[in-house]
């Protein structure tokens, strides 16, 4: 591959030294010099990832009050709480690059920031909760495991924590799916219906095909990304088809078949028009998801202000003052 691909001119010695560090497998840390394009790429990727964790709480969160047993409810609550934690690890990693948390939040609420397209689909039945854990978290793990070796240290370390926790997410999802798949005909029908609806959107989670992926080449050169979108998608299909067979579920793809030569499954064409529609904000739940985040931000305002007021009332010098108070004090 071409060694000089990248946004900055190869004659810049600082950039050359930087790329040499990455080539040696060194980790880049927060205060190290880095090309602006590297910083921007990471802020974009990490904050999108953080937004996905936060928005990702919504589709599953809807089922907390309707979980079929107290145990399932406690598990789902713990899982959704993990997603909030993942969002926080990632926002903090983005902040080490100089982005402020407020800016990132505002970009999400204003609809300027992207998050994973998968969370713009509705969770219609309890089976969807299982399918999300099994497939969506399963796909997320494949994306995230290589990121533990990402060239940017704070991101890589956040991913180590996240990957440990995702394993619980996928297994609890599989457990929900398995219970339904081994249940009554109505339960089997419900879980097959959920698989039918989530299969293709899950395959889209890996992003556009390699020849159409805007950011891939440079991200790979910079050690931010290690595998292409299509490689990871293929790995996901190969890993999931035998699991579906085990569960007695049918993957909704007539062209899916084992290719003995490639030792991989061939699968049907993905409807990329649908993907780009959802990315552009015209998916089934885009408006609803953003509105839920905005409402949470609005209705949490009194609490955020209360925290600061309480800290100040207790005489903590840590507490920031509001603009009005700063004016009054000066």
């Amino acid at each position, binding site marked *: 591959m071409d060694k000089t691909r990248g946004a900055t001119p190869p004659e810049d010695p600082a950039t050359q030294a930087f790329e040499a560090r990455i080539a040696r497998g060194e980790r880049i840390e927060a205060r190290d010099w880095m090309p602006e394009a590297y910083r921007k790429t990471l802020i974009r990727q990490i904050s999108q990832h953080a937004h996905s964790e936060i928005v990702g709480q919504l589709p599953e969160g809807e089922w907390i009050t309707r979980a079929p047993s107290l145990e399932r409810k406690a598990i789902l609550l713990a899982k959704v709480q993990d997603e909030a934690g993942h969002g926080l690890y990632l926002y903090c990693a983005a902040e080490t690059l100089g982005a402020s948390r407020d800016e990132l939040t505002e970009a999400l609420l204003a609809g300027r920031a992207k998050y994973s397209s998968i969370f713009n689909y509705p969770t219609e039945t309890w089976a969807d909760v299982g399918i999300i854990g099994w497939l969506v978290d399963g796909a997320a793990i494949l994306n995230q495991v290589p990121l533990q070796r990402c060239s940017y240290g704070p991101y890589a370390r956040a991913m180590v924590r996240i990957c440990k926790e995702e394993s619980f997410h996928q297994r609890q999802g599989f457990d929900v799916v398995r219970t339904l798949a081994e249940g009554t005909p109505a339960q089997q029908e419900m879980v097959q219906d959920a698989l039918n609806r989530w299969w293709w959107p899950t395959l889209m989670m890996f992003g556009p095909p390699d020849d159409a992926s805007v950011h891939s080449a440079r991200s790979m050169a910079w050690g931010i990304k290690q595998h292409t979108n299509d490689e990871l998608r293929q790995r996901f299909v190969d890993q999931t088809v035998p699991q579906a067979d085990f569960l007695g579920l049918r993957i909704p793809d007539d062209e899916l078949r084992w290719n003995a030569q490639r030792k991989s499954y061939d699968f049907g064409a993905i409807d990329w028009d649908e993907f780009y529609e959802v990315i552009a904000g015209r998916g089934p739940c885009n408006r609803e998801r953003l509105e839920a985040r905005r409402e949470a931000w609005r209705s949490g305002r009194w609490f*955020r202000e209360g925290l600061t007021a*309480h800290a100040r009332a207790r005489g903590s010098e840590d507490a920031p003052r509001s603009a009005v108070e700063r004016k009054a004090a000066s």
Partner: protein
Amino acid sequence: MKGLPLWEVFIRGRHGTSHRHVGSLHAADAATAIHRARDVYTRRGEGISIWAVRSEDIAASAPSKQGPFFEPSDTKVYRHPTFYDIPEEAGSM
């Protein structure tokens, strides 16, 4: 969130180990920072003790001067026990 200070979180995993940096978070004051650190960083028994330090209170060496700054340590090989040849007859040392 607006302007809530940033804190660095350190956690002691088990008795007998030191506190290690695990990440950061925003909180209005020290007590809230510790509570949030518990919820964010110790959901699975990762720790028995938490420190939270305001990020702006941490002094740090400059990464750009890393080479010259740590040079005194790199050039003094005689600080390592393996620098010395000890005859086998002298016994374990």
